C-alpha cells in the first residue's frame, strides 16, 4: 500500500474531519488535506493532485453525492477513488451512490482498521 498518497477529507463538521484524520494517521496515512463541503473539495481537486477522496454524505452547498457526480463527470478527476461516509446505510442512498460510481461506502462509527481495510480494497482494484 502506498501510504504517501494524498487523501482529501470532505466534511462540514470540523471535529469529524479531525477524527478521520486521526484514524488515518493511526494506520500510517500522513498526506492529508481537508475541505468543508463539496464545492470547496472540487476547488481543491482542481488545484492539486489528490489520490483518494473520503467524503461525508450530508453537507451544505454541495453534498457528497453531488460531489461524487461532479468528480465522475470530470475528464481529469473522473477515476479518483471515492469513499463515501454516512451515518446510516439507507438502501436508497447506497443505490444512488453506486449508480453515481462510488468506490465504496463506510457507515459511522468505524475504527481505523475498518477504514484502512476499505481504502486497501479500493486501491487494490485500481
Amino acid at each position, binding site marked *: 500500500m502506498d501510504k504517501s498518497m494524498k487523501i482529501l477529507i470532505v466534511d462540514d463538521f470540523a471535529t469529524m474531519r*479531525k477524527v478521520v484524520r486521526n484514524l488515518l494517521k493511526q494506520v500510517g496515512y500522513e498526506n492529508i488535506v481537508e475541505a468543508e463541503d463539496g464545492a470547496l473539495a472540487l476547488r481543491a481537486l482542481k488545484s492539486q493532485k489528490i489520490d483518494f477522496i473520503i467524503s461525508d454524505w450530508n453537507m451544505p452547498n454541495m453534498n457528497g453525492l453531488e460531489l461524487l457526480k461532479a468528480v465522475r463527470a470530470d475528464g481529469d478527476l473522473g477515476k479518483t477513488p471515492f469513499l463515501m461516509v454516512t451515518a446510516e446505510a439507507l438502501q436508497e442512498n447506497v443505490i444512488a451512490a453506486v449508480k453515481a460510481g462510488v468506490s465504496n461506502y463506510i457507515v*459511522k462509527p468505524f475504527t481505523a482498521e475498518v477504514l484502512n481495510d476499505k481504502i486497501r480494497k479500493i486501491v487494490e482494484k485500481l
Partner: protein
Amino acid sequence: MNVKFINPFLEGTSEVLTTMAFIEPRPGKPFLKRDNVAKGDVSGIIGFTGSAKGSLALSFSESCIVRIVSSMLGEEMKGLNSDVKDAVGEITNMVSGVARKKLEAEGLNILAAIPTVVSGKNHSIVHVLGGPSIIIPFETDSGPFFVDVCLNEVI
C-alpha cells in the same frame, strides 16, 4: 414510551463511544424524567419523524465529554470549547444513526433531523413530544452522561 425503544439507544451509545473514543461506558438503571432540566453540562438533541415521532438527547458532564472528545481527536481538549460542542452534535448524530438502524429490525422507518447542541449548567432539554422521557444513565471513569429519549410510535 415503549420499552422496546430503550435497547437500541443503549446499544447505539455504547457502540459509538467504544468505536470512536475507545471508552466503554457502563449503563445504569433507566428511570423516568418529568422535567426539562438537563442532567449534564452540554447536550446534543435530535428530532425524529416517520413511523415513530420524538427526540433523543445525549447530555454529558463536562469532565466526561472532554475525555471522550480528547480520545476521539487524539489531542487534549480543555473545557467545553467549539471542538467539544461540535463533537457532541456528531456523536448524537451517530448514536441516532445506529439506533435507527437497529429499530429498522422492529419494522420502524425513522428519519432524523439535524442535531442541535445546548450547553450551560441546568440548561433545558425540550423534547418534541413534551415528555416525560426515559433516562438511561451511563458512568465512565471521567464522569457520567445521560441518554434521554422521548419517542412514541405513530399509529
